[in-house]
C-alpha cells in the first residue's frame, strides 16, 4: 500500500493517479434523479406513501382522485430534492472555483500557468505568499535560506496560529534555479486521512544527491487548503491530488443522527400503522358481509353476480386508501421546517455569543435539537472545556525552594531575581526550558524532556530539542535554529503550557522535595511541570541523533521505534525544578454545572489529567458536593484482581448510599483501571455507571472517551459529549449530541460537533432553553399532526357505516388535500414560537427538565390522550353534521363541507387552547387560517366545473350552517376545557404550577432563586485534602495518605512503571 511519486516526471504519473479535480458533489446531472429518489425511498414513510399513491391509481378502489396523495407526495419530494440539488450545485460552484484557479507549475522544465485541476502527481507547484495550497505538496524549497515556511492550517484543523514547515534535509541548499530540474522518487503511503502523519521517504536522483534515503514527516508537507504565510514563495511536489488529498480523505458524510423524539414518533407511527391495518381488516370484512347480505339486494347498485377473483380484496383495499390519511403525510415536512427553525434560533441567540471573541453558537446539525432537551448524561472534557485553557505560570519549586503565593502574577520576574542571586548557574537552562515549553504549548504531551546540546548559547541558536511523550503517542523532533523572535512572541502568550507528569527516575535527596511540590501543587488544582536536564557530550549526541534519524525514517512502526530511541536519553536527569501552571475555570462553569445537575443531568468528566488535579477541578466546579454530602470513591489498582476488588467495593458502597440517602456519590477511575474494568468487568462497571450520578475518569485516551459514551448509550441513556480539542472528536461523534467549544485548541472539535458554542456556560442555555423548547414544541407539533389526521380519518370511517360500508369518501379530493397540506399544517407551524415557561423561570427551576428527559410530553399515554380527543371530536363533528344536515339538506357536497368546516373550526380552537403564549404570529396563523379556509373555498366554489360549485356560498348564507359551527365548537371544546381546567387547578403538573406562579407572581419564584455565585478562585475554595478521603480505609490510597509524605513519594514512584508499560504495550 505505497505509492511512488516521481518528481518532475511528466510521462509516468499521469495515468496511474487521479488528477487534481476536486469534487465534493454527491450527484451528477445524470444520476441525480435516480440516486436522490432511491435515497428518499429508503425511508419507510416514503415507501408507504408511494404504495398508497400507486394503489390510488387503480380507479376501482380509489375513493378520491389520486392527486390527493400524489400532489403532496410530489411536493414533499420536490422540496427535499431541490434542497439537495441546491446544496449540490453550491458545492459544484465551490469546486469549480477551486478547480479553475490558476497555478504556476513546472512542465518540461518550464514554468507554466495552468488550472489547479490539471496538476498531476509529481508536478512541481510554485506558490507565492498568501496562496492557497491546491493539493498536498511535499515541500522542496522556500524563500527562506534555512528552508522554513509558515502555513495557516485553519481550514484543515481549525488552528489559526501559523505553523512552521521545513524542507527536507535532502533539499537543503539546492539552488532556486535548479529546483526546476530536480528529479527523484518519493515513497509514501497510499492516500489516507491522517492529517498529522506523513511517514514517507525520499530519494533524489543524481546529480542532486546520491541515492540516499531521507525521511519525510508531516513537517515537510504543505496540505491542501492551507495558506502560505509570511514566506515569499515556496515550491513543492504534488504527492496527493484531487479527492485523495488528506483533506479530501477527511471529508465524510456523517451518519444522520436520530433523536429520541424521532424514534418515538417512528414507534407511534408503527402503532398507528398496525391500528390502521386492524381497522382496514375489520371494515373490509364488514364491507364484504354487508355486500353479500344487503348490497346485492340494492338493485340500483347493480352488483354483478360473478365478480372477478380479487373481488374480496376490493373493499379492504378501498378502506386502506381511505384510512391512509391516518399517517399524516405532512408530518415530516412540518417537523423538518420546525427543526430548521430551532437550529436558526440557536444560531441567532445573542446571549450565546462569546463576548470576548465574538464567536457565536452554531447548530451544524439541524435535526437533533429536541435531543438537547432530553439529555441525561453529559460527558465533558476538562482542559479548554471547563477551564479557559489559558495557562498562567503560578508557582514553581526550584532546587527545593518554593516560589509564588496567592497572587502570583509577578512570579516569573521574582523567580528570575531569586535565581540569579542564588543559583546563577542554573538560571539559563531553566529559562530555556520554560521558553521551550511555551513554544510547544500547543502539543498535548504529558512529559516533555528537553536536552540542550552543547551548542546552546545565549542567543539560542542551533538548539536541538525533542520531546518525548510518556505515552509515546506523540513524538516531536525539531531540529534547526529557532529564531529568537519566535520565542519572544510566545512569551507574550503568557506561558500557555501543558503540564508534565513527573517521572522521577533520578535518585537523590532532592527528589523528595520535588515530589512533595508536585503533590502540593496538584492539590491546588494546578498543573505541574517537572523540568529536568542533562548535559550531553558531543559524541553521545551524534550517536543518538543518527539513531533517532534512522528510527524516524522507518515506514513501519515508526512511533514505537522513535519512542524507544527517545527513552535512551531519558535517564540521569538533574531536576531543575517544578513549575505549576494554573488553568483557570471558565466563567460560570460551577453555576452551569450546578444548574444542569439540578436539572437531573449526570456529569462525567473525562480528562487526560492526573487524578488529584481532576478531583480538585471536579470539586471546584460543583461536580461533587463537598463533604459530608459528597463522597468520592476511587477505583484503582494495577492488576486485574486489584481493580476487580476495588470496583466491587465501590459498587457496594454506591448501592448502599444510593438506596438509603440522597448522598452524592462520585467515583473516580483512571485510564488503566478503566481499561481493565471495561475489558473484564463490564457488567459491574455498567451497574456502577448507572447508579452513580458523577464520575471522574482521568488519564483516559480519546478512544476510551468514546468507549464510555458507547457504554452509556448502550444503557439507553441520552448522552451529550462536550469538548474542545482534537482528542474529543471521537467522543463527540460517538455521542447522541456532540457539542464543541470553539476554543484555543482550534475548531477541530467544533467542526465535528453537532453544536458549537463559544463557552461552556452557554451549555445551560443550549439545553434548558433551546433543547427544552424544541422538545416541547416538537412534542406538540407531532402529536397534533396525528390528531388532525385521525380526526378526518375517523369521520371517514363513521361515514362508511352510513354508506353501506362500501368505502365511499365523504370528502372530495380538494378538501382532503388542502386539509392535510394547508388548513391544518400552517397554524400549528407557528407553535414553534410557543413558550410554555419563560426562560427565567426555567433557569430558576432547572428541575423542570425532568419532564423532558423522561419524555413526559410525548409518549404512548399522551398520544392516547390525543387519540381520544380526535375520536371524541370526530364523533362530535359527525353526529352534529348528520343530524343538523338531515333529510332535505343531506346533499353530499354540503354535508362534506359542513364536516370539514367543523374540523377546521375545532382544530383552530384546539391549537389555541394548547398554545401557552400567543404572539402576534400565532394569532395571525390561527385565525388567519380560518379566513384562509373560507377564502380558498369561496374561490373553489366559484369555479363552475368544480364539484363544489356554489356550495360554500350557499352554506355561508344559511343561518343553520353558522349555528352548526358554533354548536360543534362548543360541544367539542367545552369538555376539553373543563378537563384541562380541573387538571390544571386540582392536579397541576409541575409545568402548570410554574406557569401559574410565573404569571400570577406566585410565591415560588421569589423563593427558589439560585444566586449566581461569585467566581471562586481555585486556591481559596478548596478544602484540605481530606475531602476525597476514600470511604473504605483499607483502600490502598487511604493507607497511602495517612502514612505521610515518605509513603506518598513511594506511591508516586510506584505509579509510573505501570503507566509506561501500559503505554508501551499500546504501541
Amino acid at each position, binding site marked *: 500500500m505505497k505509492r511512488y511519486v516521481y518528481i518532475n516526471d511528466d510521462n509516468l504519473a499521469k495515468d496511474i493517479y487521479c488528477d487534481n479535480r476536486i469534487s465534493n458533489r454527491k450527484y451528477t446531472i445524470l444520476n441525480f434523479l435516480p440516486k436522490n429518489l432511491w435515497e428518499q425511498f429508503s425511508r419507510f414513510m416514503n415507501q408507504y406513501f408511494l404504495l398508497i399513491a400507486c394503489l390510488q391509481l387503480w380507479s376501482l378502489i380509489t375513493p378520491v382522485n389520486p392527486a390527493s396523495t400524489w400532489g403532496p407526495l410530489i411536493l414533499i419530494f420536490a422540496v427535499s430534492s431541490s434542497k439537495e440539488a441546491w446544496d449540490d450545485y453550491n458545492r459544484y460552484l465551490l469546486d469549480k472555483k477551486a478547480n479553475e484557479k490558476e497555478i504556476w507549475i513546472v512542465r518540461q522544465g518550464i514554468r507554466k500557468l495552468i488550472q489547479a485541476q490539471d496538476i498531476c502527481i509529481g508536478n512541481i507547484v510554485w506558490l507565492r505568499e498568501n496562496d492557497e495550497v491546491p493539493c498536498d505538496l511535499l515541500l522542496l524549497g522556500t524563500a527562506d535560506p534555512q528552508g522554513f515556511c509558515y502555513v495557516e492550517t485553519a481550514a484543515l484543523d481549525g488552528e489559526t496560529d501559523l505553523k512552521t514547515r521545513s524542507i527536507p534535509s535532502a533539499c537543503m541548499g539546492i539552488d532556486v534555479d535548479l529546483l526546476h530540474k530536480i528529479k527523484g522518487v518519493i515513497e509514501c503511503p497510499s492516500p489516507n486521512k491522517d492529517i498529522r502523519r506523513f511517514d514517507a521517504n525520499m530519494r533524489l536522483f543524481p546529480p542532486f544527491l546520491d541515492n540516499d534515503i531521507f525521511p519525510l514527516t508531516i513537517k515537510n508537507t504543505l496540505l491542501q487548503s492551507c495558506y502560505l504565510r509570511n514566506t515569499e514563495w515556496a515550491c513543492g511536489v504534488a504527492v496527493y491530488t484531487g479527492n485523495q488529498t488528506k483533506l479530501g480523505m477527511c471529508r465524510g458524510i456523517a451518519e444522520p443522527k436520530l433523536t429520541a423524539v424521532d424514534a418515538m414518533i417512528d414507534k407511534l407511527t408503527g402503532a398507528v400503522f398496525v391500528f390502521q391495518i386492524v381497522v382496514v381488516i375489520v371494515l373490509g370484512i364488514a364491507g364484504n358481509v354487508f355486500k353479500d347480505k344487503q348490497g346485492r339486494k340494492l338493485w340500483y*347498485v347493480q352488483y354483478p353476480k360473478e365478480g372477478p377473483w380479487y373481488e374480496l380484496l376490493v373493499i379492504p383495499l378501498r378502506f386502506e386508501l381511505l384510512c391512509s390519511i391516518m399517517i399524516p403525510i405532512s408530518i415530516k415536512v412540518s417537523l423538518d421546517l420546525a427543526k430548521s427553525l430551532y437550529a436558526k434560533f440557536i444560531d441567532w441567540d445573542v*446571549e450565546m*455569543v462569546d463576548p470576548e471573541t465574538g464567536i457565536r453558537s452554531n447548530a451544524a446539525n439541524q435535526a437533533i435539537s429536541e435531543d438537547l432537551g432530553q439529555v441525561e448524561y453529559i460527558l465533558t472534557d476538562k482542559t479548554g472545556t471547563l477551564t479557559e485553557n489559558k495557562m498562567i505560570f503560578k508557582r514553581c519549586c526550584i532546587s527545593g525552594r518554593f516560589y509564588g503565593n496567592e497572587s502570583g502574577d509577578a512570579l516569573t520576574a521574582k523567580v528570575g531575581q531569586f535565581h540569579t542571586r542564588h543559583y546563577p548557574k542554573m538560571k539559563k537552562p531553566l529559562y530555556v526550558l520554560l521558553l521551550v515549553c511555551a513554544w510547544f504549548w500547543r502539543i498535548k504531551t504529558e512529559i516533555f524532556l528537553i536536552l540542550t546540546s552543547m551548542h546552546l548559547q545565549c542567543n539560542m541558536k542551533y538548539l536541538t530539542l525533542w520531546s518525548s511523550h510518556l505515552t509515546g503517542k506523540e513524538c516531536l523532533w525539531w531540529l534547526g535554529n529557532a529564531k529568537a523572535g519566535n520565542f519572544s512572541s510566545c512569551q507574550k502568550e503568557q506561558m500557555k503550557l501543558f503540564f508534565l507528569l513527573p517521572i522521577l527516575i533520578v535518585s537523590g535527596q532532592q527528589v523528595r522535595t520535588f515530589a512533595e511540590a508536585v503533590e502540593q501543587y496538584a492539590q491546588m488544582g494546578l498543573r505541574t511541570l517537572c523540568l529536568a536536564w542533562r548535559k550531553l557530550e558531543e559524541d553521545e549526541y551524534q550517536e543518538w541523533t543518527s539513531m533517532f534519524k534512522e528510527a524516524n525514517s522507518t515506514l513501519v512502526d515508526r512511533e514505537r521505534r522513535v519512542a524507544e530511541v527517545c527513552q535512551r536519553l531519558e535517564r540521569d536527569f538533574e531536576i531543575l525544578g517544578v513549575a505549576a501552571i494554573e488553568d483557570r475555570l471558565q466563567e460560570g462553569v460551577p453555576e452551569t454545572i450546578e444548574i444542569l445537575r439540578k436539572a437531573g443531568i449526570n456529569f462525567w468528566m473525562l480528562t487526560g489529567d492526573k487524578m488529584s488535579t481532576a478531583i480538585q477541578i471536579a470539586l471546584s466546579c460543583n461536580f461533587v458536593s463537598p463533604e459530608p454530602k459528597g463522597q468520592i470513591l476511587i477505583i484503582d489498582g494495577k492488576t486485574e484482581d486489584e481493580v476487580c476488588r476495588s470496583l466491587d467495593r465501590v459498587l457496594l458502597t454506591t448501592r448502599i448510599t444510593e438506596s438509603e440517602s440522597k448522598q452524592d456519590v462520585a467515583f473516580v477511575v483512571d485510564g488503566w483501571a478503566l481499561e481493565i474494568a471495561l475489558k473484564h468487568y463490564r457488567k459491574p462497571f455498567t451497574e456502577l455507571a448507572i447508579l452513580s450520578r458523577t464520575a471522574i475518569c482521568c488519564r483516559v485516551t480519546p478512544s476510551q472517551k468514546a468507549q464510555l459514551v458507547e457504554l452509556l448509550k448502550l444503557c439507553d441513556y441520552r448522552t451529550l459529549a462536550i469538548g474542545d480539542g482534537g482528542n474529543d472528536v471521537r467522543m463527540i461523534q460517538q455521542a447522541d449530541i456532540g457539542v464543541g467549544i470553539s476554543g484555543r485548541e482550534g475548531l477541530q472539535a467544533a467542526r465535528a460537533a453537532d453544536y458549537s458554542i463559544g463557552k461552556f456556560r452557554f451549555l445551560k442555555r443550549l439545553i434548558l432553553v433551546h433543547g427544552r423548547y424544541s422538545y416541547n414544541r416538537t412534542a406538540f407539533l407531532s402529536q397534533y399532526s396525528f390528531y388532525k389526521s385521525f380526526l378526518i380519518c375517523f369521520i371517514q370511517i363513521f361515514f362508511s357505516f*352510513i354508506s353501506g360500508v362500501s368505502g365511499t369518501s365523504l370528502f372530495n379530493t380538494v378538501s382532503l388535500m388542502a386539509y392535510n397540506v394547508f388548513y391544518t399544517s400552517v397554524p400549528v407551524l407557528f407553535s414553534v414560537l410557543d413558550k410554555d415557561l419563560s426562560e427565567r423561570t426555567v433557569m430558576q427551576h432547572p428541575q423542570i427538565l425532568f419532564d423532558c428527559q423522561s419524555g413526559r410530553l410525548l409518549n404512548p399515554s399522551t398520544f392516547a390522550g390525543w387519540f381520544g380527543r380526535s375520536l371524541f371530536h370526530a364523533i362530535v363533528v359527525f353526529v352534529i353534521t348528520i343530524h343538523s344536515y338531515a333529510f332535505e339538506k343531506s346533499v353530499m357536497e354540503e354535508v362534506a363541507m359542513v364536516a370539514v368546516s367543523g374540523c377546521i373550526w375545532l382544530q383552530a380552537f384546539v391549537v389555541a387552547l394548547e398554545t401557552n403564549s400567543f404572539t402576534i404570529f400565532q394569532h395571525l396563523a390561527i385565525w388567519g387560517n380560518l379566513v384562509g379556509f373560507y377564502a380558498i373555498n369561496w374561490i373553489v366554489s366559484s369555479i*363552475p366545473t368544480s364539484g363544489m360549485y356554489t356550495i360554500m356560498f350557499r352554506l355561508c348564507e*344559511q343561518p343553520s350552517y353558522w349555528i352548526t359551527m358554533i354548536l360543534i365548537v362548543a360541544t367539542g371544546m367545552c369538555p376539553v376545557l373543563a378537563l384541562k381546567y380541573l387538571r390544571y387547578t386540582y392536579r397541576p403538573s409541575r409545568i402548570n404550577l410554574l406557569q401559574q*406562579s*410565573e*404569571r400570577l407572581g406566585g410565591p415560588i419564584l421569589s423563593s427558589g432563586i439560585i444566586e449566581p455565585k461569585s467566581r471562586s478562585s481555585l486556591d481559596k475554595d478548596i478544602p484540605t485534602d481530606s475531602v476525597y478521603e476514600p470511604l473504605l480505609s483499607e483502600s490502598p490510597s487511604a493507607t497511602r495518605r495517612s502514612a505521610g509524605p515518605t509513603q506518598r513519594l513511594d506511591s508516586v514512584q510506584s505509579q509510573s512503571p505501570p503507566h509506561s508499560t501500559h503505554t508501551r504495550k499500546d504501541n
Partner: protein
Amino acid sequence: MNSGTPSSSAAGAGSADSTAPRRNSKRPKYSRFTQQELPACKPILTPKWVIGTFLLVSVIFIPIGVVSLFASRDVVEIVDRYETDCIPEALRNDKVGFIQSDRSKTCQRTLRVPKNMKQPIYVYYQLDNFYQNHRRYVKSRSDQQLRNNGSLQDTGPCKPEDNTAGGPIVPCGLIAWSLFNDTYGFTRNNQQLNVSKRDISWKSDREHKFGKNVFPRNFQNGTLRGGATLKPNVSLSEQEDLIVWMRTAALPTFRKLYGKIEVDLQRDDFINVTLENNYNTYSFSGKKKLVLSTTSWLGGKNDFVGIAYLTVGGLCFFLALVFLLIYLIKPRQLGDPSYLSWNRNPSGH
C-alpha cells in the same frame, strides 16, 4: 397577562459589541423574533376565566336553543308513509313481484292538515334505507356528459349503465338510471291543487351542470329498466326531477323536493293524493314517504339543533356551577409551592 419581556440580553449585547469580531463571528442580528422574545399574551386558566366562559356559553346557548326549537316547532309537516299501504292487501306477500308486474299501481291517500300552512308548501318524497352514497352508485355519473353536448362518449365512470347497442346513454350512469318515478297528484275539496315543478332544483345546477343542448339518448332503452324515463325532447337543464335526483344525498335517509304547492292550506283541510307507486324499494325493504312541509329560517322541521343547544347550554351552566362550588368550598391557590415536588416519579399523570 402580558409578560415575556426581554431579560438580560441587552446587557449581553452591549458588552459583546466592544470586541472586534473574529472568525465565523458575524454577530447575529438582534430582533425580538430571532431572540424568541416577541411580546406574547400568556393566558392561564384561572377559575374566574373558566367559570366566566362556561357561564357565557350557557347564556348564549340557551336562548339560541329556545329560538331554534320554536322555529322548528313552527314548521308544519305532514308525513305519510305509503310503501306498504299502496299495495293491495292480497299481494303483500310478494311486494317485489307486484312492483315488477304490469298491474295498475295507482293508489289513493288522504292527508289531514294539522295546522294552517302558509305557502310555499314543499312537497318531498322521502326514501329510507336507500344508499345514494354507495360507492358504486355515487361515482356512476359523468358530469362532462351532462354538461356538454360534445361529450356524449364520456361514459367512463358510468359502468354498467354506459352504453347500449344504439350508442352511449345520455344521461349515463346508475344515478340517472335509477331516477325516482313515483308521481303524486293533489286535490283539495275535489279541486286540483297545483304542484309547481319549476325551480325545484338548484339554479347553479340548471345553468352550469346540466347542458341546455344536451338531450336524453338511449335512456332506459336497455334490457334492464331502472327508474323513470325522461322526455326525449326536453334538454337536461329543464329536467328538474333528474337534476334534483342527481344531487346525491349523503345519508341513507333523505328527502328530495318533488314540487311546491303555492297556495295556503287551512287547518283540517283534507287533501287527496293520487299517487303512482312505481318505484321499487321493496327489494331492499326501503320505506317511501310523502312529506308536505313548510319552512322556517332554519330549514325544515328539525328539533336536533334546538335540543342540542339547550343541552350544551345547560351542561355548561351546570359545569360553571360545579366549578364555582368547588372553587368556593375548596379554594386552591394557583402556583402554590407546596404542590411543587421534584420527585422524579410522581404519582400524577
